[in-house]
């Protein structure tokens, strides 16, 4: 991995391959005269053509990826008729404020956003505590039942939570939790992937440091949050983003347990608008923008930490 880590560094100066300054699509510079290097020139030309083809492919892929995002932004500023016009409106319109007003009138969207922030925020805070504690226990402590616990975590990663919804819903209605925040938050805070992620990052923490702290008389909890936890900050950041995105985007479970409009989260509120007989796509796209853009901004700020944290630091750059 150490050998290849610098290959991941984009725009690294002074690398032979990046010496090609030709903009995409432009013809390669004419080869120098003389036939001594004809084969070499052909090789360079072939390589140049391959390089351009690679960039063209990647740019097409990137455009396909980005168009839906651009369309969210553009469509959120048009009324429904403006979204479905022929030819299409490819520039932003002036209907954003009216869409927001309509969205608020139809769903009470301010409250819906508040619910989403509250549910995803609380979920993340509890989840970080539960997952990092469990990951630490599984990585650095020996106790009876550890193997069973680890097996359960891996099993939970494999089983989609959707198959548990029928008895979980009945459990919630028996304890009177239907349409409450805790019902939306609690069942999945022990996120199996989160626990596994944290366990993997704790494994490489040196045992000697923990032992030394014990010799110095530090308590187990103190060792955990003063010594071990600060050392895995990148994984912790990835965990925070992972949990927040999971719950912010979560749909089926909130759809089932949150039953009235003032308790809906953003995805549930948006899906309720799709079911209406006259669908106000302008308002829906404005709501979609509100669902997507904050998460995108957070991701763009922390993308390095997030991606490398998720993959245990094996991706650099």
């Amino acid at each position, binding site marked *: *991995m150490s*050998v*290849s880590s610098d*290959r*991941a560094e*984009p*725009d690294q100066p002074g690398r032979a*391959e*990046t010496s090609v300054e030709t903009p995409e699509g432009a013809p390669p510079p004419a080869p120098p005269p003389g036939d001594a290097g004809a084969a070499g020139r052909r090789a360079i030309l072939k390589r140049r053509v391959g*390089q351009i083809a*690679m960039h063209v492919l*990647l740019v097409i*892929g*990137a455009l396909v*990826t*980005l*168009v*839906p995002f651009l369309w969210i932004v553009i469509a959120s500023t048009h009324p429904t008729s403006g979204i479905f016009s022929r030819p299409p409106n490819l520039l932003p319109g002036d209907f954003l404020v009216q869409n927001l007003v309509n969205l608020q009138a139809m769903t009470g969207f301010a409250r819906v956003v508040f619910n989403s922030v509250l549910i995803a925020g609380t979920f993340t805070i509890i989840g970080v505590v539960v997952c990092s*504690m*469990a990951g630490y*226990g599984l990585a*650095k*402590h020996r*106790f009876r039942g*550890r193997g069973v*616990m680890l*097996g*359960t*975590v*891996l099993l939970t*990663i*494999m089983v*989609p939570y*959707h*198959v*548990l*919804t*029928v*008895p*979980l819903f009945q*459990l919630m209605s028996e304890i009177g939790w239907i349409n409450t925040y805790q019902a939306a938050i*609690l069942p999945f805070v*022990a996120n199996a992937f989160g626990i*596994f992620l944290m366990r993997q990052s704790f494994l490489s923490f040196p*045992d000697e440091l923990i*032992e030394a702290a014990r010799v110095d008389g530090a308590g*187990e909890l103190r060792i955990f949050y003063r010594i071990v936890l600060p050392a895995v900050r990148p994984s912790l950041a990835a965990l925070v983003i992972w949990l927040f*995105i999971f719950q912010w*985007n979560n*749909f*089926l479970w909130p759809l*089932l347990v949150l039953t009235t409009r003032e308790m809906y989260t953003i*995805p549930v509120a948006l899906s309720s608008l799709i079911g209406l007989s006259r669908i106000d796509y302008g308002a829906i*796209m404005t709501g979609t923008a509100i*669902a997507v853009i904050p*998460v995108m901004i957070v*991701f763009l700020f922390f993308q390095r930490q997030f991606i490398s944290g998720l*993959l245990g630091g*094996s*991706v650099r750059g």
Partner: protein
Amino acid sequence: MTLASSARAVAGRVVGRSGEDPKGSSPPAGRPRRRLRGRAGWFFVAPAAILFLTFFLYPIVATFVMSLQTREMGQMVFVGLDNYERLLTDPVFHTALFNTLLVLFVQVPIMLVLALLLAVLLNSALVKARGGFRVIYFLPAVTSLVAYAIVFRILLHTDAGLINQFLGTLGLAEPDWLNRTWSSRVALMASITWRWTGFNMVIMLAGLQAISNDLYEAAKVDGAGPVDRFLRITIPMMRPILLFAAVLSTIGTLQLFDEPFILTGGGPSNATLTLVYYLYQQGFQSLNFGYASAIAWFIVLLVAVLAFIQFKTIGREDPT
């Protein structure tokens, strides 16, 4: 337990570490100390353990018990395997199974090949701005499923959707995407591909970067061409990563719900109904708790069988 242990090994390799630490930390010094540390270990794991017990183990057992029952006049009565027998003869269930397997065997391979192709391109030193491309390709993976399904519903609109207008400009046919059996399936699979290719690409890129450059250099010295190097070095070295991505995609496919729910409502005439969608209809619209539970257990068994097959086929001949 073979499944779990190989999953652990695979995932351990994916994150680039040994992943195996059967002994835990160094052995404890004395007996009282071990008891103390055992207690400390449980203290750290306890919150997660209690939550798993309540919200995972209890419901999964309850699902099984319920799958052997049916509701008669408000009471659950034991009916043995009747619900499972009904799975065998229910044409709607068969359609849902067909649709789910179609995504699994058509969309997932296409997506994984596409992801591997992109990862190889982005791993090449010839490509500029690789960091930028990687971010763009990963962006769909942080987008809400409901949100992107709504956008695709608008983009795929028959008369005035952006996609058909684009096809029309090129002089191509403008399909009635979401209202025809096969075009709605194609639309669903295309949407899923948009959402997940970048995610898989990032996983594969990590795998590619973990392959030592020395291997390629040595192969070059021995006169191996780029295709040879890809088939003889990249693919074998990437086996654990490909397995990991395949297992993740399988699990993801078997829980497909948000996209068909928003995009097509499962239609037209169940053409995009998935297993979880059918479970939702049976459990929460028709209130057939017993039958829905049988569907749930079917999905669990399908996950286990498919993961087992993948470990046996892709996972064999471990290169490391």
